[in-house]
């Protein structure tokens, strides 16, 4: 038995090392930001799936969350603002063996990209959409988003927000998504399980994750990072199968989390093969 200083000094390998582009670290996310937690949840789910990592692709749009594609060691695409979903659509249709994950933010997916979202859900495109919802445009410095609550101050709504926010799970459900869930970044275990489940389902899966932007939302709205996390812990209710119409976000009343939709419906590719191709073969 000899004392080996090398072994002693060696830090344990990070369990997600194989899935991260270490040469791109440090990342751009601010301290206290929730995106990193959602990102590692997503990578853990990918790893736990046991599927061939070379058959995963991640597509992002623009924004803080949109930078995820730049840190994941998979085939990854950082596209234009709002266009991750139609890009992912082409990618998936070109190679249906790929597991295509869209990882982006609320501003990207639901304002500039809203039309693409509802149509991909309607078609039941076989992709998994992970939306980090921080209620604000983080990267551009804190402007109002399609998810910002009335009560919040942003740089473009300095007196409060006159617009009503989207209820994202309701929108996904109404558009035809076959898997719909909502978690916060504090609910890491539920979230990781949920992403794993979404990856295993065929069809359009959507997971909304509430996540703090302490720099450009919290600061202006007098919410310290720890207070936000506390709110995620104390003012949320897990209610699987809740009616999507009840899912408006109101932390005073309590925000409902859980898996709301998990059903089977033919995907675009299945329908295309069945309706278009087989008719031709008759």
């Amino acid at each position, binding site marked *: 038995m000899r004392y080996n200083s090398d072994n002693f000094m060696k830090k344990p390998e990070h369990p997600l090392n194989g899935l991260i582009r270490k*040469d791109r670290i440090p990342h751009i996310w601010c301290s206290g930001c929730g995106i990193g937690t959602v990102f590692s949840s997503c990578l853990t789910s990918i790893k736990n799936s046991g599927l061939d990592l070379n058959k995963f692709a991640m597509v992002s749009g623009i924004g803080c969350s949109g930078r995820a594609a730049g840190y994941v060691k998979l085939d990854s695409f950082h596209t234009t603002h709002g*266009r991750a*979903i139609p890009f992912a659509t*082409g*990618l998936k249709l070109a190679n249906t063996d790929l597991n295509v994950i869209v990882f982006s933010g609320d501003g990207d997916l639901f304002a500039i990209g809203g039309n693409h979202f509802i149509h991909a859900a309607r078609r039941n495109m076989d992709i998994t959409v992970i939306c980090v919802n921080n209620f604000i445009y983080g990267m551009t410095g804190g402007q109002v988003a399609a998810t910002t609550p009335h009560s919040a101050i942003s740089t473009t709504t300095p007196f409060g927000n006159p617009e009503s926010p989207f209820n994202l799970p309701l929108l996904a459900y109404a558009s035809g998504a076959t898997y719909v869930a909502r978690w916060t970044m504090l609910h890491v275990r539920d979230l990781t399980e949920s992403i794993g489940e979404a990856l295993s389902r065929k069809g359009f899966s959507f997971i909304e994750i509430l996540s703090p932007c302490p720099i450009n939302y919290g600061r202006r709205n007098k919410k310290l990072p720890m207070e936000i996390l506390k709110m995620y812990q104390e003012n949320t209710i897990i209610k699987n199968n809740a009616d999507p119409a009840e899912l408006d976000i109101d932390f005073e009343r309590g925000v409902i989390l859980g898996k709301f939709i998990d059903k089977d419906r033919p995907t675009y590719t299945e329908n295309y093969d069945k309706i278009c191709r087989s008719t031709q073969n008759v």
Partner: protein
Amino acid sequence: MVKSAVLTGEYFMTGDVACAEGALAAGCRFFGGYPITPATEIAERMAQRLVDIDGTFIQMEDEIAAVASILGASWGGVKSMTATSGPGFSLMMENIGLGIITETPCVIVNVQRAGPSTGLPTQGAQGDMMQAKWGSHGDYEIIALAPSSPQEFFYQTIEAFNLSEKYRLPVLIMSDEIVGHMSEKVIIPAADEIKIVSRLGPKGRKDLFKLYAPGPGGISPMPAAGDGYNFHVTGLTHDEKGYPAMNVDTHAQMMSRLTGKIKNNLDDIIRTDSYKLDDAEFAIISYGVSSRTSMAAVDMARDLGIKAGFLRLITVWPFPDDQIRALAGDVKGMVTVEINLGQIHREILRCVEGRVPVHLVGHSGGTIIPPEDVVKMLKEAF
């Protein structure tokens, strides 16, 4: 139903249908489109035909999504295209830029109609020529072809795919309503007589792979998603690895690769054609459907004793600066013929540098230019 990608034979076909057949013959197996007059028939033909040959057609929710989908499909390893007209072309500009910066091969067809805005939806024009060159923000070089007949639309579509695969960029076909909707004889050759170019894939160790390291001819080999290269593609300024790098030097290097691959290969890319130009005193310069006007005008002028000749631009972008400059030394005057208020005309003026007079025969769109207008200009101006 036919099950062959190449419908060898002789047909009476519209330009739009011939374009779709050219795409299939070139190996296109993905079409992401959005209906718009006068390009819809291309999408319709592709919807009909792709199912037979293991391809995929999808009608997207708008033209922004259409281009996003064909870029995605291209990175999935499949040759892809879309087709549109003016209003849709405007929406496509965003992702054409993404295609350029990420060096993604694909083909985008614009069957031009008169603009601006909704303009004359069912009537031809050539008013998007400058938009083709400059429409997406930032500096870039692009390749754009202009067919003058359904037969040429067929061949140019194959050529557009070959150029896009070779030089790794979106290639534009700037057709127009008149060529798109005209029916003429189209001969589709046997499959083995059609030259097809496909992107080079990477070789060597996957862990050392760099997405934008120069390969043969300076063009980087392109892997497909799922091949195991774990590459990263971004619309941000990026280094050879494909990683974002926000600095002036990397940007300059990237831009020099993006523009250099076109600028350093002009001889390979630029295609022109001429008619009775050798002894001409006056040169008519035109492209696309206006070539037909110009050919007729040459003969009519020669009947009147005016020694006219015709230079046809088969590729409009990159612009054949050298050819136009040389021509300016050989003739006494030039006439540009195009269905717009003088877009390519400005390029010709730029190259001629005042050495000979250059006049425009053009109008704001909606119909073909009659050859008589060109002859009148030749008679009156020179």
